[in-house]
């Protein structure tokens, strides 16, 4: 066993096998389970009907995020404000009741550390290297940024994990995304992952767990790594991983739910043994040249539909696959774009800075850096900044970033999923465009008829200033 070199994924998998079955599936132990209001009510109801308890409430953490409005949650006297939409209110109330009923730790809507589950997990030190982490949300892949095997599950699996703390799984294939060279100035982790999704395609990683490798990740912040791993699902991979290192350990040390003292030291010693062994084999390998990546934007209705900001809307005929040609035609009709149109000529009316992909402090700093001393363009009707958690919000306010946003004409909101997914009041109106730091540009994703252009936080800020998709590197050259 010890003689064969193993990948990071294989090491985490091997450590978590409860038992292997004759048919090749394995019962895998789950170390951490994040729960939110949208995909859990039916799971709790099923437990109740069968009179089953939650096996490990201590390994479970519940946070509302998806349909919580991002406007003020309490009035001046500190009383909670009602939620206007009755369905959202019922779903949020269900989580608030289910968590204590099943003994689960709950960070509520007005708690100072409430936020998007995928921001809260690492921030609380709940997400740890080498751990198996699940959540009823496909962007759970994000936690791979701290070296955890983390993936999204459906509600039946949520029920399965609540009841048994395990999942019955078949081992995935492994895919290496090897990034050579460094990113240029103004090119961020978001641009890198958008570019990678463009190269791999939305189904390229299906059946695989991706490991992102290369020197660029060694110098990348943990926030950036979380952004990269977050969008693994956009390349079809249920999970993405980056090997944990000293940066990871420094990020996690002292967090509320992280181990401490002798347990911390023991943990670090094991975490150091996790990186992929020299000579380990991947089932698939993709090589990316980081030096060739520009700030990247999406043009279509699939996250694989990306071009450099200096590029143009592609012609459907430029794709070899006839079905992709059809898809591109439909995308362009939906997006209201013409082949050959330069991306920098695309005007936008809305800007969204937030989501589990890009709402951490580093993202807000990058956006504020561009907006400092500038104003949003007259054509930009709606521009909001939604911090990923209450702790991010407090940190940003301590740094005065909220003032920068407000002075630039953007709204500063309460933490939540917001305009990423059209489930709460934050929506992009039909037919309008949004420069968005979120992860999906699907038809109707930000609201019926909404047109999404996926970008980095700095690029979203640049678009807010000019009212069109803009190369942030050009903008920051000019004095504010």
């Amino acid at each position, binding site marked *: 066993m010890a003689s064969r070199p193993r990948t990071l994924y294989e090491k985490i998998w091997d450590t978590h096998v409860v038992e292997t079955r004759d048919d090749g599936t394995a019962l895998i*132990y789950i170390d951490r389970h994040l729960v939110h209001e949208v995909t859990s009510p039916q799971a709790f109801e099923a437990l109740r009907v069968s009179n*089953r308890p939650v096996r490990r409430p*201590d390994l479970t953490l519940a946070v509302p995020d998806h349909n919580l409005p991002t406007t003020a949650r309490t009035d001046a006297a500190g009383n909670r404000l009602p939620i206007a939409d009755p369905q959202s209110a019922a779903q949020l109330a269900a989580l608030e009741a289910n968590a204590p009923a099943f003994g689960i730790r709950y960070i509520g809507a007005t708690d100072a550390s409430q936020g998007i589950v995928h921001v809260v997990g690492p921030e609380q030190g709940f997400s*740890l290297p080498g751990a198996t982490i699940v959540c009823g949300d496909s962007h759970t892949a994000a936690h791979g940024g701290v070296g955890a095997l983390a993936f999204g599950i459906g509600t039946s699996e949520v029920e399965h994990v609540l009841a048994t703390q395990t999942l019955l799984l078949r081992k995935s294939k492994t895919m290496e995304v090897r990034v050579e060279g460094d990113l240029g100035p103004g090119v961020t982790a978001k641009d890198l992952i958008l570019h990678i999704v463009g190269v791999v395609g939305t189904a390229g990683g299906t059946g695989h767990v991706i490991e992102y490798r290369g020197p660029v990740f060694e110098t990348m912040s943990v926030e950036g790594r979380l952004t990269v791993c977050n969008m693994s699902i956009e390349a079809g991979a249920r999970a993405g991983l980056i090997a944990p290192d000293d940066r990871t350990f420094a990020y996690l040390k002292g967090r509320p739910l992280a181990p401490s003292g002798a347990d911390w030291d023991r943990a670090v010693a094991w975490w150091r043994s996790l990186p992929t062994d020299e000579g380990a084999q991947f089932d698939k390998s993709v090589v990316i040249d980081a030096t060739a990546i520009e700030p990247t934007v999406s043009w279509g209705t699939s996250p694989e539909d990306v071009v450099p900001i200096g590029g143009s809307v592609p012609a459907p005929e430029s794709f070899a696959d006839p079905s992709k040609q059809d898809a591109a035609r439909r995308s362009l009709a939906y997006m209201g774009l013409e082949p050959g149109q330069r991306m920098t000529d695309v005007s936008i009316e809305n800007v969204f800075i937030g989501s589990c992909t890009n709402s951490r402090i580093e993202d807000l700093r990058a956006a504020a850096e561009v907006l400092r001393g500038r104003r949003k363009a007259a054509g930009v009707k709606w521009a909001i900044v939604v911090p990923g958690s209450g702790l991010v919000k407090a940190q940003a306010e301590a740094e005065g970033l909220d003032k920068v946003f407000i002075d630039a004409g953007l709204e500063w909101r309460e933490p939540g999923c917001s305009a990423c997914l059209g489930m709460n009041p934050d929506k992009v109106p039909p037919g309008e465009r949004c420069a968005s730091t979120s992860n999906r540009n699907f038809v109707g994703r930000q609201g019926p008829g909404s047109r999404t252009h996926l970008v980095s936080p700095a690029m979203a800020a640049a678009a807010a200033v000019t009212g069109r998709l803009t190369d942030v590197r050009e903008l920051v050259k000019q004095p504010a």
Partner: protein
Amino acid sequence: MEPLREVEGRAIPYGAKNVDTDVIIPAHWLKTITREGLGRGAFETVRTQPGNVFDDPDFAGAPILIAGDNFGCGSSREHAAWALLDMGVRAVVAPSFSDIFASNAFKNGVLTVELPQEQVDRLLEVARDHPVSIDLESQTVTTPFQDRFAFDIDPFRKHCLLEGLDEVGLTMARDAAIGHYEARQAREMPWLVTGTEKAA
């Protein structure tokens, strides 16, 4: 879960590629706390287009959906499987499925059948006017025209579907093995529980 042995009847000839779960069931339908009634929201954006297959009376209540490559990509929402079930769909045939969707479908007794693109193309053609039949026991898809396509399925999933087994119940029967693992983990990797214990 209701046992599933065969699915026979009209098959909705949809065929589009990379259909994401936002298309199968848009987010605003996700604010429910039950599993029922989602069929009304299924393929809502597709249904705004005149002449779409989902509103064709010929396919009302059809138990089979024929789809394109990478069906069910994107969000992990199980509501996509519930919406199909609520429409009356018990089997989806496509060249490939996203991992999470295939798992969600299985857990709700919806059979996902992977066939090569040319066989899916043939079924799309036949389904326009004729029924399609899927037999899980023999792992075959047949048409009234002597087409007979064999498919692979995970033996465990096949067994569960045929018997209508509840996976949670099956795993709970492995309580001793799980307890044994937990005891070992507490000894060898205590840091996995000490952090969450101290704050509980």
